[in-house]
């Protein structure tokens, strides 16, 4: 496999994808075949508590779907030797035949779609960052954090780059490829008062595919934030209060609720409450939601989805009205619509069959800035940094219960100190109808959601 230059990745993978299809079509006439190949490099350096660790590697592999009429099978293998590609085709056929399960709703792999689409932004100097430069960056950011305050007990810094691409081809004429790059830096500081068990975290990050990383001042911000949270008080009540969800937290809200509920597989298979509600109002009319596979700075933006269909922008909720769900080719056919080009493959990609996933979700900003929104709250909670448990909650019923370990208390329109951990409970979907404000501070979070601070009424806060 060895090193393949970035510019050559598409051609390299498309050539192998084509070889695989030709092999399958000639050896197994009459069957359908789809091959997905991935190749990539990653390099990551961390310094945790003063201990450096460096990792890098070249990865790649192939995933093959085979269908004989209504019978489908899949096999994958790491490595990209000709031998392993052809073995994987044979394994997919053997697996399909061993299971011998028919799927009456299967109507073949994806058909080619003609639509203009492009890969996300690409900042070439990211490719030229050496391990030595990454080590210097993480050394500097952790050193800066150490200088801020002696109550910083532990520092973790982490930086890395990744680049790579995938190609997907099938017997219906698809053979498309995409490449991408990414770079990131993270700094996390734990503050602790000497002789106390109380610990608070501050973390900051930057992620980019389209420009140089900006990490000036991040260390100081993270360390200062953690130290400032050390002094806390108890909320000492359990009642419904307005809650302010900063973008890092509001994005996990959407990820744990609408993201699964608007997934076409969940809809078709009876696990979404919105299954038969297209055209109905499902949120307040101030709320809209899009999925955009073409946003240039999006970390998961690529010209094609994991079935080789050109990506697009899909309107999901417009002014409160449900417009569409996210689909791959299989579930769009079952539902009787077009694929929204949301096929994605988890992990390294080639190890998984296409599943439906978001590209970048976008919640448009409202008109209120965060300060004004807080000023209007007589008593409430500002949730920041991270919330534990949203991801373990039930996205089907929408019932959730979570812990905010580092929230702030709002009293008479002002931030009035840091709180001991509080729990927040309620229902995700009910909450979408009780949004008081969407603010004007949207950012693109690393969870592929671009969203502002959101203020919601009615959740029970307890602590």
């Amino acid at each position: 496999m060895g090193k393949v230059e970035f510019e050559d990745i598409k051609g390299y993978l498309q050539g192998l994808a084509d070889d695989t299809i030709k092999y399958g079509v000639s050896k197994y006439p009459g069957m359908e075949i789809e091959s997905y190949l991935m190749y990539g490099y990653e390099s990551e350096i961390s310094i945790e508590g003063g201990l450096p660790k460096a990792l890098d590697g070249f990865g790649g592999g192939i995933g093959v779907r085979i269908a004989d009429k209504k019978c489908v099978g899949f096999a994958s293998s790491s490595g990209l030797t000709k031998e392993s590609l052809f073995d994987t085709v044979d394994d997919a056929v053997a697996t399909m035949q061993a299971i011998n399960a028919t799927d009456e709703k299967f109507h073949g792999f994806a058909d080619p779609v003609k639509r203009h689409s492009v890969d996300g932004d690409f900042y070439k100097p990211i490719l030229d960052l050496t391990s030595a430069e990454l080590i210097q960056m993480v050394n500097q950011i952790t050193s800066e954090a150490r200088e801020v305050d002696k109550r910083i007990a532990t520092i973790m810094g982490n930086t890395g780059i990744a680049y790579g691409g995938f190609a997907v081809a099938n017997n219906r004429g698809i053979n498309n490829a995409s490449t991408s790059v990414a770079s990131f830096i993270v700094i996390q500081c734990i503050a602790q008062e000497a002789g106390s068990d109380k610990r608070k975290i501050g973390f900051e990050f930057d992620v980019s595919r389209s420009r140089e990383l900006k990490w000036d001042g991040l260390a100081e911000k993270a360390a200062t934030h953690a130290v400032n949270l050390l002094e806390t008080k108890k909320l000492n009540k359990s009642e419904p209060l307005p809650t302010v969800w900063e973008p890092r937290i509001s994005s996990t809200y959407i990820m744990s609720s609408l993201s699964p509920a608007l997934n076409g597989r969940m809809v078709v298979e009876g696990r979404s409450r919105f299954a038969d509600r297209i055209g109905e109002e499902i949120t307040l009319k101030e709320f809209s939601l899009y999925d955009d596979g073409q946003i240039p700075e999006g970390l998961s933006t690529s010209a094609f989805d994991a079935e080789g269909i050109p990506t697009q922008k899909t309107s999901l909720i417009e002014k409160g009205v449900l417009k569409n769900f996210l689909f791959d080719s299989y579930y769009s056919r079952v539902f009787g619509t077009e694929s929204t080009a949301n096929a994605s493959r988890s992990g390294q990609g080639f190890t998984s069959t296409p599943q439906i996933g978001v590209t970048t979700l976008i919640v448009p900003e409202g008109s209120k800035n965060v300060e004004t929104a807080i000023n209007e709250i007589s008593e409430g909670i500002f949730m920041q940094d991270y919330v534990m448990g949203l991801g373990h909650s039930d996205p089907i019923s929408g019932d959730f219960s979570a812990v905010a370990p580092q929230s702030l208390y709002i009293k008479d329109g002002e931030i009035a100190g840091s709180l001991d951990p509080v729990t927040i409970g309620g229902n995700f979907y009910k909450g979408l109808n009780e949004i008081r404000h969407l603010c004007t501070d949207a950012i693109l979070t690393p969870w592929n959601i671009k969203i502002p601070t959101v203020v919601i009424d009615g959740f029970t806060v307890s602590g």
Partner: protein
Amino acid sequence: METIEDVLEFAVNEGEKAGADFVEARFEDLKLHTLIREKDTMKDVLSSRRRGIGITTYYKGVQGFSYTAALSQPDVQETVLRAVKIAKASEPTARLRLPFEKDGKLPDIRTPLEFKVNKHPMKYSLAYKKDLVDRASSTALSYDSPKANSIIGRYGELSGIKMLYTSENRLVSYKPIITDLRMTVIVKDPKTGELLRAGDGYGGAYGLDRWEQKGRTPEEIATNAYNWAVEKCDAKKPPAGKHRVLTDPDLTAVLAHESFGHLTEADGVVEKSSPLTGKIGQQIANEGINVIDRGINPGEGGLWLPFDDQGVPTANTNLVENGVLKSYLHNRGTEQAVPDSGGLSGNARALNYRFSPIPRMKNTIFLPGDVKTEEEMLELLGTGIYSIDTSGGSVSMSNFQFFALRGYWVENGEKKYPLRDHLLTGNILQCLLQVEALSQKTVLLSGYFGGCGKGGQNGLSVGMGAPHMLFSEIQVGGES
């Protein structure tokens, strides 16, 4: 043609020639099968081969790790040279180093160790395993008041071989095995139209005869999942606030793992991020509490892990004895850095060949107490919450949260009404001082699906076990 053993030995030699103090070359060739059925249709039928080499090099107590999915000698050579290069480049920044010495007493196992089970999954066809999923699915779909709105039947299996060659010129090799069968049922509440889920299933080092045993058959798993989903139609949310809480063995096992086990992983101790740093010998839990972490369980079940990913035999580690913290979970470097904390435990584990081993749990188990039955535990609870099963949890600093999937509101030892999903939270070190009783009944959990996440290595199979546990007080999330 060179064997894979030759390639690993070659990698170690090349790494040493390039200046590494110590090299570990790790190979895996694993086969993973996944079957997922939705209602009437087998939706995902996956057969995956995961094969590659990961090489850890150590230079003055600092590690560099590189991996490759290509196994030719030139690819492996390039990989080990990169690993040495990044270790050397990182070394000057180190404020903490974790060097360790060569150890001539560690084993050399050239013939792969195998786990003996009846009905070894590799000897049975995929059709046999599909039948398990089909039987569970058909059972779940056979009930009709109400009919299931959605069901997911899943079978997963991992088998194959792992090998490690080290600078001690020794090789260790074993053949891991994991099987798993699960059923999830979603029903629509006939009164409110709400969708409610419940699930059942088991996984771990089992032969396929596991699903022939009473209480474990696909039909029984599916019936449980269906009944528990239906029961949720009448369930309420618990009142938010502090309650007496009884946790069932499944949930307690996750607590053992998430809320306690992670804090004993020694990387967090040497980096001073764990709240258990410096607490060896201290009373951190009630006297009745004993926690162990072991690689091999008696009989079947749990995770079968004879060696860790540094080739260290897995120890029976006593983490907590009568409430006193005795050990941490180590890799070879942390064990040297923290003397008198239990010794080499065999806890260096990597998610796969693309990751370097870090301290992770094996089978983390709360040992049982003396209360005989569930009924007696309910009597001891008196009035409060009985929390059952979990979708997982997490711990940050000393705060833990975990999510119970079901439960009952209990008054005077009697179940009054079923509970919906609810959150349990608190400070783990306080919580362990509030344990009032443990039952004699324990379960051992592991599996192919799900798994543990840490440091970007998510989905690692671990084992966990526990009895029922009664707490005098836990904060419960709900509605006021």
